[in-house]
């Protein structure tokens, strides 16, 4: 028993060493010097400095003076972009799907955040600073999302962006129908099982939400005397009806997404984003007309039937129609290379460089309602910045430093030191009696499981593209 305690204490030490932030300077100023700055709004500026003070970008120009005590980063020969924003992620989530009901709008990803998830650090090493942490796609109306900044090493309360508008996940298609999963013996099939049933489930929820809202409106107007019961399922949907909550709807087939937009028309609200929307190019004019955004994979396709009509020209066609397009990962793996996914948009159709860059920075910021504070390099915005060794659209490029609000959360040089320290620590731990192999004393060591992974959105397992 004592040995086990020691073992766990050591394990905890090892894990907590992982959690240490790379640099813990708080609100000090940072001066990035002599970079090629890709602003994402005002073109690319050569040999330019960026000053961040108290977390905000205060100056952009040439030959800026470093305030006393400023952290100066020499970016000569390097590129700087805004921090990447992933508009569809399940990182940090210890549970993703509450799929027992068709409508689970009462659930919140906010309650499931795990700030020690190593995928956060790996995402930072790929230049990602913000993400939309969504409920899974197991049901037509899923849970409430959380828009976070990846403040690795900070307590969990620091992650959610306080002034980000609330949102909710909807889903349509194969995952909701559960037809890609083998039916479990003894378990009844869950409604809906078809696309007709899916849209009807959504309609039913909004009819109930409308009635619920009416009951409260009547009560508030003094028409009724008895206060209606609070309904945590319908309350978020009332917020949708009132335009106070963003709808992010997972779906593939264009006809299905169009049905959703028609339903929203009928109930008088707007869909914020069509998530995945791999066939959105087929209904680009309809999407553009409604000002709905689309958050896609650049070129993932064919992993299921409803992804068989996906084309890498999707972003281009939507962009040409004036639709706000973002490129997301929906994968802890893919998240690390969203810069290359944006680059592909130049290849397929020829979206200009800055517009392609916006698809992983400013556009997702707009879709999530956080564009006032992040998504581009402009004075007054948060100092969410990435320093790249080369042009960020080059496969040979590497992230050197990632900053959020002027604080360094990833630095390749410091990472090198960290891994040396960890190797040393591992060596020390392995020498301890308690960790010796059974034949030479000590208890049998547990066989390491793969990694303690956040739960996956099972139905989305193939989306990362690797087997």
């Amino acid at each position: 028993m004592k040995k086990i305690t020691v073992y766990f204490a050591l394990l905890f030490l090892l894990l907590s060493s992982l959690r240490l932030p790379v640099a813990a300077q708080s609100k000090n100023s940072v001066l990035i010097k002599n970079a090629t700055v890709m602003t994402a709004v005002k073109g690319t500026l050569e040999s330019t400095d960026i000053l961040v003070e108290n977390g905000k970008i205060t100056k952009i120009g040439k030959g800026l003076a470093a305030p006393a005590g400023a952290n100066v980063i020499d970016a000569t020969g390097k590129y700087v972009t805004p921090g990447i924003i992933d508009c569809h992620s399940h990182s940090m989530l210890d549970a993703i799907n509450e799929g027992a009901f068709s409508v689970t709008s009462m659930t919140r990803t906010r309650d499931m955040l795990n700030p020690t998830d190593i995928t956060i650090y790996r995402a930072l090493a790929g230049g990602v600073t913000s993400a939309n942490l969504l409920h899974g796609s197991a049901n037509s109306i899923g849970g409430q999302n959380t828009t976070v900044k990846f403040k690795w090493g900070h307590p969990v309360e620091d992650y959610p962006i306080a002034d980000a508008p609330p949102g909710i996940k909807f889903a349509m298609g194969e995952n909701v129908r559960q037809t890609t999963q083998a039916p479990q013996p003894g378990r009844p099939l869950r409604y809906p099982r078809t696309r007709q049933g899916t849209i009807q489930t959504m309609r039913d929820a909004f009819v109930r939400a409308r009635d619920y809202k009416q009951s409260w409106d009547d009560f508030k107007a003094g028409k009724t005397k008895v206060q209606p019961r609070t309904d945590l399922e319908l309350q978020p949907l009332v917020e949708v009806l009132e335009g106070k909550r963003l709808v992010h709807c997972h779906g593939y087939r264009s006809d299905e997404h169009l049905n959703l937009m028609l339903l929203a028309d009928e109930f008088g609200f707007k869909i914020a984003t069509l998530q995945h929307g791999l066939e959105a190019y087929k209904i680009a004019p309809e999407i553009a007309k409604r000002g709905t955004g689309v958050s896609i994979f650049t070129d993932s396709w064919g992993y299921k039937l409803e992804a068989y009509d996906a084309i890498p020209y999707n972003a281009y066609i939507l962009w040409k129609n004036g639709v706000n397009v973002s490129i997301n990962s929906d994968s802890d793996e893919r998240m690390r290379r969203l810069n290359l996914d944006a680059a592909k948009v130049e290849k397929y159709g020829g979206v200009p460089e800055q517009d392609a860059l916006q698809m992983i920075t400013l556009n997702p910021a707009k879709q999530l309602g956080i564009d006032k504070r992040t998504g581009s390099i402009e004075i007054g915005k948060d100092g969410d910045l990435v320093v790249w060794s080369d042009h960020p659209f080059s496969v040979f490029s590497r992230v050197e430093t990632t900053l959020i609000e002027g604080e360094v959360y990833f630095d390749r040089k410091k990472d090198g030191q960290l891994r040396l320290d960890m190797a040393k620590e591992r060596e020390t731990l392995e020498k301890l009696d308690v960790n010796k192999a059974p034949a030479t004393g000590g208890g049998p060591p547990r066989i390491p499981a793969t990694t303690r992974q956040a739960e996956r959105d099972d139905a989305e397992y193939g989306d990362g593209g690797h087997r």
Partner: protein
Amino acid sequence: MKAKVKSQRAKLKMQNAKCFLYLCLSVLICGSISVHAQNDGAEQNKTGRAGTFAIVGARIVTVSGATIENGTVVIKDGKIAAVGAGVAVPAGAEKIDGKGLSVFPGMIDASTNMGLAEITLGLAASVDLTEVGDMNADARAIKGIHPHSAHVNVTRVNGITTVLSAPTGGTISGQAAIINLNGSTPDEMAVIKDFGLVINFPSVAGGGGRGGGGGGRFGGPAIDFNQAVQRRDQAVEDLKKIFRNAEAYLRAKAAYARDKALPYPATDQKLEAMAPYIHGEKPIIFSAERERDIRAVAKFVGEMKVKGIIDGGQEAWKAADDLKKNNIPVVYTHIYSLPVREDDAYDYLFEAPSKMQAAGVKFCISTGNTGSEVRDLPYHAGIAGAFGLSKDDALKSVTLYAAEILGLGDKMGSIDVGKIANIVVADGNILESRTKIKYLFINGRLLPLTSRHTELFDSFKDRK
């Protein structure tokens, strides 16, 4: 009417099982029709045209030698007929202006399941990856590859011209084929019909073949490490037994051939299929990831005197000594994978190719993808290039190195006279994701740059 229904019902009851089977079959068939219907017409005139071609005034990245800044490549009879700065254009050759363009050898992905699965999730009718049973040496990928899969064109228009396509599952999965991504029949595509035997080598930590059993996951009881090693060793013994059985079987056959008085040994197709593999005539592709598992493969290869290739190879660099001693190259498939352990460095798997290079392990880089994402092969190599591998070696890792590991070093993988004319002409470095492919040749045939994707694009791009 009622009677008819009744009689049908009676019939149904009688043949309940049979009808259920038909029902299953019809569901399967309908599923596959819906996919193939979408493919219809897509294959017309897609195999390109042969001829004599001269790419003139281009930058020629030969891969095997120095890059020629302004040269000509002549393609004739399916082969590269001439390469160089001062090469004359043969009479009657079709001239292609290469100004501002670069010529590369077609890329080669040495670990895919191309053509064996169209849609893996939720459409079992389109999946031919895994046979029933643990030992299927006689299962041949070339007999399952669908030449009209939409993945073929999607992959080749990104500059990948040749792939190895392997069956999966069990311990001995079957035999992998090497195909060019052009042709109306599997035989037209084939470069080597039966290239290698695929074995999921028993591992200690579970996953991949039999006998693993790490335990502790999925609610199973955690087991002692030594016990896990024992289980693996037992599984390896079982595997060796299959090899010995094959050997005994072949000896019996040979003995009978010499002396007809001996009892005739009944034919065993599965053991028969092992023949080229048990003495190292053809390679065996072993999937293995962790250092201890890779060392176990090396030991097996040494003891059994077979020819081995590692597929996967996350920690192959750690076992460099064993791999070199036993002449085992690595087909590395983990650029697009997350590091397994929480405390692995973030770039643990990005750096592996450069570590293999430094340790002198022969390797190539592969997507390890089923089919739809094989076209990302150049970016896998590119990312390795960002993490320690030189740009030249990054390019070689998806061209010449892959060709050499597949025993095709004298036939493809570089721009050299006499090699198969699998050639890509692009407006930049083919490893870069912004680069556009301008011309594509496979077996010297000039191919249209069309795919399921360009066809859908054309259908919808102007919709108002």
